[in-house]
């Protein structure tokens, strides 16, 4: 079997795995053939996916699909398990700064009904628990908390609430009602400063009132103290700064991978594997070191393919900017089967992908004369005149507060749409797909807002597509829409 890039079925992966092993495949402790995730883990969706054939992709899939067993091993070893909910990328930076602490997102169970093709019964159990399909499929998390058959029950649960997903707030409350205490922290609706009010520019270019950053910093300080109590360790500035450094290591790699994968022609990595790689940003799939190694492998593979002119989509495939993660992973296969490739994404985790800026605008540096310092001790503090001292929040919390406020979900959809337009234009997108998540409160009107702005600013087609956790019954109509979009793009290329 050749090393030429292609997407292959699970059955083909069986042969591919044997061939790779004969060639001296290097694997981590979570390695092994992909087939075992079907046979042992019940992840039957793999039988219907086409996956990248590289050893790097094998490691990526194995990292993703072995997370539950990794968490259980950690539990047995006495590691503190922090269940973080909704914030997608902020609290884990704090948790991973501590020794013997792992943070993970129970929210991630929203993909379990897809992966296990409903055989696990999570959505049916959520129905019985009073959270029906008028909610986002993230309700699978509630059922997984109750039946305990997927991830281990976290030692503590931390959930952001306020200007975030209504579904998450409701489901989090239901989880608490069922006897799982939740540590809540609040995030306000992002707003610009009022006249005369100090403002701060966030990573990604958004500008907010500084009082909001201060408020979120104080909320995150509550989380910090909660984690200190739970872990019995001090979460001080040095540790936080190291946590940020580690998060940025991952974010920088993902940024590089996005550049190579989304701008390279022919497309060097399938949309499906790219999506999983991007999602690693939020909590490193419970293993920071393995995440870094997997991303490095992917970068090497992508570079190799780019140099060789090798790709997984035909050159000249329709360039699509994809918005929101689809509830069914197979949607990404369908897009490519229709003759398109992904050239940019917004999976609602921009704040987990943008680098955490150690020298943000609007702050004075603690270290006088070194305003651009990047060492942990030189992180910025607010303009308001607060100084580092006893009882003051560690300066790095300001940086995390800024990232949390940059969450696309906590501000107006128009701000998210502006970023989508900017990136779609930069990456030469010829169309935008807004993939709606059934029941998700943020999806109710965002396609309309994003579509209007894309139409006005870029004049390219926007396809609004709802993807259920298992799209099979809707596959013909989804396929038709994607094919029609590709036809439209190709026709628009002609003079």
């Amino acid at each position, binding site marked *: 079997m050749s090393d030429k890039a292609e997407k292959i079925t699970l059955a083909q992966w069986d042969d591919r795995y044997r061939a790779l092993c004969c060639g001296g495949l290097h694997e981590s402790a979570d390695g092994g053939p992909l087939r075992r995730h079907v046979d042992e883990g019940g992840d039957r969706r793999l039988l219907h996916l086409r996956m990248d054939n590289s050893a790097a992709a094998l490691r990526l899939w194995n990292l993703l699909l072995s997370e539950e067993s990794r968490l259980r091993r950690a539990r047995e070893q006495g590691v503190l398990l922090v269940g973080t909910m909704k914030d997608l990328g902020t609290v884990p930076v704090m948790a991973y700064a501590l020794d013997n602490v792992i943070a993970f997102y129970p929210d991630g169970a929203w993909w379990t009904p897809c992966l296990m093709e409903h055989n696990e019964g999570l959505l049916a159990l959520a129905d019985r628990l009073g959270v029906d399909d008028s909610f986002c499929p993230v309700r699978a998390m509630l059922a997984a908390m109750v039946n305990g058959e997927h991830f281990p029950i976290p030692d503590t649960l931390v959930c952001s609430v306020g200007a975030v997903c209504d579904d998450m707030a409701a489901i989090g409350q239901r989880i608490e009602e069922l006897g799982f205490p939740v540590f809540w922290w609040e995030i306000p609706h992002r707003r610009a400063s009022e006249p005369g009010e100090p403002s701060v520019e966030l990573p990604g270019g958004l500008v907010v009132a500084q009082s909001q950053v201060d408020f979120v910093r104080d909320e995150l300080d509550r989380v910090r103290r909660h984690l200190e109590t739970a872990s019995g360790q001090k979460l001080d500035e040095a540790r936080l700064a190291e946590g940020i450094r580690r998060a940025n290591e991952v974010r920088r790699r993902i940024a590089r991978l996005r550049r190579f994968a989304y701008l390279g022609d022919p497309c060097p990595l399938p949309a499906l594997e790219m999506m999983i790689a991007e999602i690693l940003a939020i909590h490193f799939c419970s293993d920071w070191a393995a995440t870094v190694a997997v991303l490095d492998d992917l970068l090497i593979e992508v570079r190799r393919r780019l140099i060789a002119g090798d790709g997984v989509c035909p050159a000249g495939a329709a360039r699509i900017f994809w918005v929101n993660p689809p509830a069914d992973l197979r949607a990404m296969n369908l897009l490519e089967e229709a003759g398109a490739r992904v050239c940019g994404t917004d999976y609602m985790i921009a704040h987990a992908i943008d680098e955490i800026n150690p020298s943000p605008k609007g702050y004075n540096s603690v270290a006088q004369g070194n305003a651009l310092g990047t060492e942990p001790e030189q992180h910025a503090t607010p303009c308001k005149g607060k100084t580092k001292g006893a009882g003051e929040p560690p300066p790095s919390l300001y940086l995390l507060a800024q990232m949390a406020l940059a969450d696309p979900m906590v501000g107006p959809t128009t701000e998210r749409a502006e970023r989508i337009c900017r990136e779609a234009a930069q990456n030469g997108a010829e169309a935008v797909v807004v993939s709606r998540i059934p029941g998700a409160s943020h999806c109710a009107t965002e396609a309309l807002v994003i579509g209007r702005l894309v139409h006005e600013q870029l004049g390219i087609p926007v396809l609004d597509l709802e993807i259920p956790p298992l799209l099979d019954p809707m596959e013909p109509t989804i396929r*038709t829409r994607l094919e029609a979009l590709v*036809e439209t793009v190709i026709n628009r290329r002609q003079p």
Partner: protein
Amino acid sequence: MISAGIDAGSRTMKAVLWNRVEKRIVASAVADQGIDQDALARSLFDRLLDENAIQRESVRAIVATGYGRKLVSFADRAVTEITCQRWGVRRQTPEARTIVDIGGQDSKLIRLDEYGGVAEFSMNDRCAAGTGRFLEVVATRLGAKIDALGRLAAESQSPAHISSMCVVFAETEIVGLLASGVSPHDIVAGVQASIAGRVAAMSARSVESPIVFTGDVALVPGMTEALAAAFQQPVAVVPKPQITAALGAALLAAGEGDGRVAGH
């Protein structure tokens, strides 16, 4: 110089033979759908050839479209109905800027740019409440034929308000309306308004005139008026609305349209 377009729709199969030199439809035919779409398409196609004394070898290329487009094994290529509707409609009504296509099991809204290209399109998402299937259900429930629905609706004094979001629940709602003495005329008018309202809702971003109406449901009397009321703009039915997608497919097979000539 003949080309052929076959539209394997969810409810009916349509075929068109197009003469590229004379720029005219040579023949067209419509048949109810069946289980073996490939055999049905072949039989319809062969019948058209026989009736018009055309040899198979004279057909330069065949393009299939519609829900079952990939099941038509003898087609040279498959193209979606969105692209085919664009070409079929534009051939007949070049001024069209918005196409409403309501078929048996789905509905589409296609917005065209100033050059007649597809700018954007949307399709109904979840259920049959915005499709011809809804009309079939109400016709069955009222014991009427589909083509009688227009006459019934025309006599409506006060169209009923159908609020259900899905056809199954709407049927229950209709039973309740009948039981409470609402006339069939008002129920049919209400159903037509409901379908039109759902289709108009798909145009949330924009709809530009002229709006043209195509698809099987365009043949149902009363629907055009219901759509015009929903869009608050005039709506015109395309000539031969049942075969516009098949015509577009035949045009593409002839190399008219996207410049690519299929097959052979």
